[in-house]
């Protein structure tokens, strides 16, 4: 099991995000976290990443707690994509992607040719080939987001935790990114957890879903079992309705 949580309770301030959450992420799992703004999706993701403590419960990454792993070893096993993209100092695209290699370098280590090759490959995979010398502050929002995802891919963790990976991306790159992440999970035996805002993407690219209702209630399970019109309507506080077409195996959920 790559990540397992038992009876995990998470809160931020007085807001209870979830109580008694059980999760098991095996190799190949793609989990979508869905919920309204402020439901605590990012807080839960940061907790699963070991970046903030849980109130109660146990969390094991490859059978050991984050404390037992230590910061650096944990960073080799799990990668986390946050929402913050501020760059106070000038830096190039390649340098930014190479930050993902940090956990794999020693204290006096200097990035080797293999690290640079890997960084270039991930840039190409994110559709950013030939942009390695660009200053990041000259990039568009979507390009900057793809550079951040490329840095996460260059980290080569076993567990990918992504907070709104699709932010600022155009439709073409949304599909490409989700496709690439779910292929990584299936082909390389890793697990992917993503905060998403579109239940249709969750149905299409993920096999598991975790719905946070914002009042400490949650539902977790296989996407086809937990995502239906009634649950989504209550999750988002807006009536949702399924459209069934012959072109797709699953229904498509649209707001009424």
């Amino acid at each position, binding site marked *: 099991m790559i990540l397992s949580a038992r009876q995990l309770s998470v809160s931020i301030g007085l807001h209870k995000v979830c109580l008694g959450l059980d999760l098991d992420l095996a190799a190949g799992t793609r989990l979508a976290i869905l919920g309204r703004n402020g439901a605590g999706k990012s807080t839960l993701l940061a907790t699963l990443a070991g*970046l903030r403590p849980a109130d109660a419960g146990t969390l094991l990454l490859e059978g050991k707690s984050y404390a037992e792993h230590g*910061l650096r070893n944990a*960073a080799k096993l799990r990668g*986390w994509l946050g929402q913050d993209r*501020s760059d106070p*100092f*000038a*830096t190039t695209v390649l340098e930014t992607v190479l930050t993902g290699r*940090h956990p794999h370098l020693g204290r*006096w280590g200097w990035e080797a040719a293999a690290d640079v090759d890997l960084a270039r490959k991930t840039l190409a995979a994110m559709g950013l080939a030939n942009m390695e010398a660009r200053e990041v502050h000259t990039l568009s929002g979507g390009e900057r987001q793809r550079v951040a995802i490329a840095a996460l891919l260059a980290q080569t963790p076993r567990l990918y935790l992504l907070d709104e990976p699709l932010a600022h991306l155009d439709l073409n790159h949304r599909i490409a990114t989700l496709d690439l992440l779910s292929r990584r999970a299936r082909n390389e035996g890793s697990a992917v957890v993503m905060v998403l805002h579109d239940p249709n993407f969750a149905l299409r690219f993920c096999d598991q879903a975790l719905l946070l209702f914002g009042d400490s209630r949650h539902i977790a399970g296989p996407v086809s079992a937990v995502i239906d019109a009634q649950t989504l309507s209550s999750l988002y506080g807006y009536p949702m309705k399924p459209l069934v077409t012959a072109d797709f195996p699953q229904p498509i959920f649209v707001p009424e």
Partner: protein
Amino acid sequence: MPSHRRALLVLLLLTALSVASLGVALAAGSMALSLGELWAMLSGANDTARTIVIDLRLPRALAAFACGGLLALAGALMQVLLRNPLADPYVLGISGGAGVGALTAMLLGLTGLGVPSFAFAGALATIVLVFGLARNDGSSTQTPLLLTGVVVAAGCGALVALILTLAPEQKVHGMLFWLMGDLSQSATPLPALGVLLAALAVALPFACELNLLARGAEQALALGVAVPTLRRIVYVTASLATAAAVTTAGSIGFIGLIVPHLVRLAIGNDQRLLLPAAALAGGSLLTLADTAARTVAAPIQLPVGVLTALIGVPVFLYLLGRSRP
């Protein structure tokens, strides 16, 4: 990312610049010496010229080099710690605290080691005060630390103004010189040089982690950096470096702000190279500035802080204008 080889080349060039700046500082002055004469003297001959060079110019040149290196290193570290390219070694009030200490010592009529001791005590008191007041900071930004430092610096500024108002007139001149930064008073360069080496030895092993911290605390934590510990190490190192520099030479301005920027423009923002390069460049620059300060208007000695500010302001404004899109 600079390659390993380029990094070595840059450091080699800057080392050469450092040696050259020290050579100029030893040779220039009311008794100018050629390079040959300088060499002959350093390797033996014993006369008045030797006394001037070894006992007067050498300690002052080394003190200038150490202070410049300390300020540039502290500035580079503060900029990463606060994730703010406009931060400098004095932004958290350390020079203000040292100023209050030094001026108090002068007001009390202390001489010799009294002034630097009081200055160092004032700097240490500020470091402890700012860190103590700002320590409940669990946020991802360093805004509480920055605001606490700025407010404490403002308070120290008020105290300095108060002391200047109350001080008898014959003492005010010396006080103003100290405040503007002045190397003619520095007794021995050894403490400052020692602190410079120690600060580099502490900071350099964390250079990789600093690269990540500059990009954001949470991302750094996720990549395996012990962020709270690293921040404490950086704060203490940069603060003590600043305190050592200010104690030796008063608050010399702009070295700590513009040298990290100049170096960053030339070689990029990789801290593994930036930190040692900034220390060497800052040392060289202040050594040259101090040599100019004691020679351009001889026999009047200008306070070197005035000279660095006069050079620093236009250079910095130029850089700021250039970096705007």
